[in-house]
């Protein structure tokens, strides 16, 4: 498992350097996904499979999807073409192939003695909803605040966004109720 850690660490560093150095925005985001995957493999080798899964689901899934939506909404085609040329896929593909081979090796081996002290999802959940339950509540409030803040900042182009919302709100509610009925 130590070799797996070192290979994943090298992949993470290479991918992160490429995130910073690519001039093309879409290429940089591609390498960012690879970097997050590599860190997920590092988590797995450190005996934290739950966090490794969350890294893939939340970081590489949800947060990168947010970046993708922002790139689409911002219409950055003038600076960086959204269609990625085939040659640009080569670097991320090679790095991800290394990670996939590593993961397949680790999963087929399935020797828990090779791993460090594994702290599974059960212990994490017991701790999360035991002594840290106040933190969970605070995180939920933070996420709600971020949701409202993002809606307020990016909602309407004009400053009279509040009034425009009141105008559009009831109509939207009515159409939703009709759709529900």
């Amino acid at each position, binding site marked *: *498992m*130590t070799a797996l*850690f*070192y290979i994943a*660490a090298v992949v*993470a*560093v290479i991918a*992160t350097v490429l*995130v*910073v150095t690519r001039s093309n*925005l879409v290429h*940089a985001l591609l390498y*960012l996904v690879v*970097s*997050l995957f590599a*860190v997920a493999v*590092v*988590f797995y*080798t*450190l*005996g*934290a499979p*739950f*966090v490794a899964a*969350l*890294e893939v689901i*939340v970081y590489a899934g*949800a*947060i990168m999807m*947010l*970046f993708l939506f*922002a*790139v689409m*909404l*911002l219409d*950055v085609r003038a*600076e960086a073409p959204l269609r990625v040329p085939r040659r640009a896929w080569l670097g991320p593909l090679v790095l991800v192939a290394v990670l996939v081979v590593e993961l397949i090796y680790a999963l087929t081996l399935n020797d828990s*003695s*090779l*791993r*460090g*002290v594994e*702290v599974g999802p059960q*212990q*994490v959940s017991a*701790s*999360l909803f035991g002594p*840290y339950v106040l*933190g969970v509540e605070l*995180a939920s409030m*933070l*996420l709600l*605040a*971020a*949701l409202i803040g*993002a*809606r307020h*900042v*990016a909602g309407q*182009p004009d400053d009279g966004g509040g009034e425009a919302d009141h105008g559009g709100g009831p109509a939207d509610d009515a159409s939703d109720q009709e759709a529900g009925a």
Partner: protein
Amino acid sequence: MASVPYSYGLLLAAVLFGIGFAGLLVRRNLIVVLACIEIMLNAAGLAFVVAGARWGRPDGQVMFLFVLAMAAAEVAVGLAIAIRFRQTLRSLDVDDADEMRG
């Protein structure tokens, strides 16, 4: 049991944080700046998980979950600011936002 020396995990976290910080200082595209902040938060979370694995306790992973929630909140607000930035300044260059320069 040949497990990884935990100082190497912390070293990896430090290297990733340094790369993210260098990118934050060097790059001028707002989206890439946000991506660099993500890299730095991820490196901080990695340090938490390494420390948790060192003692075999779940606390490090719990802290990583909180870092994850904070990163999601940060990137949502940051990208909303990026959209508004683009609408008002017609660019994504952070150096264009110099109206408050004294």
